[in-house]
């Protein structure tokens, strides 16, 4: 039964929240995870693509999580020139997030974390600038929970961080407006993800086609908030569907936002830590956030458990979390952000000419390295940027 006091409260039951709760519980510290929805893992708001090595850092990969194994990518330029590139070493997956998220929360629960659904956190409690609990609606009743540390894993809305005074707001140009259809009755090559780029397809983003088994796929779009004023993401996606997959049956429509921003400078304050989308732990170039969010939850959970044991939940103590994140990720996030900014400036014509050039390399020789070598002759700086995008897929 939900108690009124825990050492750590985790707000949000996605992968970042579950990883955090799991690590805190493993540290022998009392923790509860509060999910606002009825289910962990549903509704899914994700393209569900993830790299195998990234995932394997944390968990043994279960067959039931995998909808499709991905071994190559097709990149389609604005004039529909398409380039296939096989992954050299890395394998990717399209997950069933519904099952995956559920299992992660089970791991946390089995380690001793308490998990509650239909628990909507509506404010944080604080005393002298120290966050020390949450206010929530749970099963029709308002409750308060005291906690030494609150971990905000509440996704892109990240109100927990805002209430605690952290700067979580994302600039419009860095917020991707996204919508995805899960579709059936589409003919799609297996094991290959497709990405459409260019201003005509998805300004400041891309359209993705991620296969999920026979004749089934996630087809979605993200466009920059800078361009969403006059034409919505869904309008772009519907034009695309009419052109490419007119016979598709749309079984689900799901929306979301993807903060493709610089890393948050300070995802902690006295008694509070943010993880996952709430802390903008997303590769700003690809919009992928599963592994980054899990890493954030994993490290934050460990730091939180140590903080409880050391009886220090001040901002100063919790700063160990972003410090360890930086040590792990290095400058990658910053670098990806820079590449995102420079590739966004490419015109449709430039993207088409790059695609043409890459096509002249025979398919079996078209590893990322050989593409890189050939392309460098054409437009050195531009090509480097684009290939970095390819490499990050």
């Amino acid at each position, binding site marked *: 039964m939900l108690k009124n006091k825990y050492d750590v409260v985790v707000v949000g039951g996605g992968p970042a929240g579950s990883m955090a709760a799991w690590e805190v519980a493993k540290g022998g510290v009392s923790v509860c995870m509060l999910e*606002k*929805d*009825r289910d962990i893992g549903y*509704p899914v*708001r994700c393209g569900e693509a993830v790299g195998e090595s990234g995932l394997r850092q944390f968990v043994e990969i279960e067959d039931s999580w995998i909808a499709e194994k991905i071994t190559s990518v097709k990149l389609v330029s604005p004039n529909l020139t398409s380039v296939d590139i096989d992954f050299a070493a890395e394998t990717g997956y399209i997950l069933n997030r519904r099952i995956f998220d559920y299992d992660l929360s089970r791991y946390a629960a089995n380690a001793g974390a308490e998990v509650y659904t*239909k628990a*909507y956190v*509506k404010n944080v409690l604080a005393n002298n600038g120290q966050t020390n609990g949450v206010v929530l609606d749970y099963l029709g009743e308002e409750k308060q929970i005291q906690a030494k540390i609150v971990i905000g894993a509440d*996704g*892109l*809305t*990240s*109100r927990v961080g*805002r209430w605690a005074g952290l700067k979580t*707001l*994302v600039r*419009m140009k860095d*917020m991707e*407006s*996204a*919508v995805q259809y899960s579709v059936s009755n589409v003919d799609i090559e297996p094991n290959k993800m497709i990405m459409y780029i260019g201003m005509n397809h998805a300004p400041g983003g891309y359209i993705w086609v991620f296969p999920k088994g026979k004749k089934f796929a996630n087809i979605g779009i993200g466009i920059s*908030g800078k361009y*969403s*004023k006059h034409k*919505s*993401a*869904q309008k772009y996606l519907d034009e695309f569907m009419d052109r490419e997959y007119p016979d598709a049956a749309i079984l689900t*429509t*799901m*929306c*979301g*936002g993807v*903060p493709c921003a610089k890393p948050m400078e300070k995802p902690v304050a006295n008694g509070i830590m943010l993880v996952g989308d709430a802390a903008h732990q997303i590769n700003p170039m690809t919009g992928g956030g599963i592994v980054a969010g899990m890493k954030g939850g994993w490290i934050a959970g460990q730091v939180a458990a140590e903080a409880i044991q050391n009886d220090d939940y001040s901002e100063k103590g919790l700063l160990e979390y972003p410090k360890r994140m930086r040590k792990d990720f290095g400058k990658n996030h910053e670098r990806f952000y820079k590449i995102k900014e420079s590739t966004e400036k490419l015109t449709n014509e430039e993207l088409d000419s790059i695609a043409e050039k890459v096509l002249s390399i025979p398919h079996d020789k078209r590893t990322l390295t050989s593409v890189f070598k050939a392309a460098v002759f054409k437009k050195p700086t531009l090509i480097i940027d684009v290939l970095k995008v390819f490499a990050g897929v």
Partner: protein
Amino acid sequence: MINIRENRCDYCGVCVSVCPVDCIEVREYSIEIDHPVCIDCDLCVEICPIEVLETHAQE
């Protein structure tokens, strides 16, 4: 004044994430705007991927 066409809404919360005055509340199956707090900046209207929100000219 922002108008919510709630029967279109997926409750994803992207509007909440860009609101500079934190006047939108999205729960599992509800969305509400605190109109007296709202500054009519229309960022939520712009970012919504499925055109749930619209600017409603005041009389």
